[in-house]
């Protein structure tokens, strides 16, 4: 029997973080994965918010007190950055799916733009929230 009849060769795992030389495009990719975990926390907090709202004013007040604490605001700001990072990253990926933006110069530039957009949009959102008295 040949080699293939005993199963496929060992498939490699993805390269772990430490094997990469730092570069803007790899940083974007790793940040994207990190932002997905932030969104995971975010969707659980959103589900908790909906549950608290459906449970009545006391539960809701308790829940918003926790989210409105300093630690809560820090977490929410991080999630805001992750949300805007994903908005920009999805647009970038969609251009890749069309076959555009793969040359290193463009990929580096769009990487910087995606990170900058996430930070600026999150800060602007929180400034608007502060200005309108939401926080």
């Amino acid at each position: 029997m040949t080699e293939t009849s005993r199963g496929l060769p060992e498939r490699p795992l993805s390269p772990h973080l430490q094997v990469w030389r730092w570069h803007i495009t790899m940083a974007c990719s790793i940040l994207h994965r990190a932002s997905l975990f932030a969104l995971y926390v975010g969707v659980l907090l959103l589900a908790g918010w909906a549950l608290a709202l459906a449970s009545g004013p006391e539960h809701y007040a308790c829940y918003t007190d926790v989210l409105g604490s300093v630690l809560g605001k820090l977490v929410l700001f991080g999630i805001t950055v992750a949300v805007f990072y994903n908005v920009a990253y999805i647009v970038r990926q969609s251009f890749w799916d069309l076959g555009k933006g793969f040359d290193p110069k463009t990929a580096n530039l769009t990487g910087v733009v995606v990170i900058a957009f996430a930070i600026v949009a999150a800060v602007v959102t929180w400034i608007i929230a502060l200005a309108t008295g939401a926080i």
Partner: protein
Amino acid sequence: MSTSKSQFRTPLSRARGLGASHHGVGHFISERVSGLALVPLFIWGAFAGIRLAGSDFDTVAAWVAIPINAVLLSLLFIALLVHLKNAIQVVIEDYVEAFAPKAALVIGNLFVCMLAGAAGIVSILKIAFTGAL
């Protein structure tokens, strides 16, 4: 053959040597399409968050009860959870090699996403249909 990687493989699939082909395309498309749906929903969600952050219980409950808000909130849950379930599953498959922990994490991820979606959407529909109390 005794390795964890080949335990679900039939002799025919080993002879073909294609690996777990075909279903990856569906996974990829579902990630991209849910991602596209999330762009407008996230932007709407940011505006909604600014609007609701400082509001009291009655204002927020009345806002959620408006049909368009209930619909968009529910869609946000669905698109986001489809996106995250797929995305986190890929991370698990990338970095966890042993079969049992990998299977446990993939199933756990699915259950958490289903639970969050059911809790979120049922709560929203309850407020929309019967009010918050």
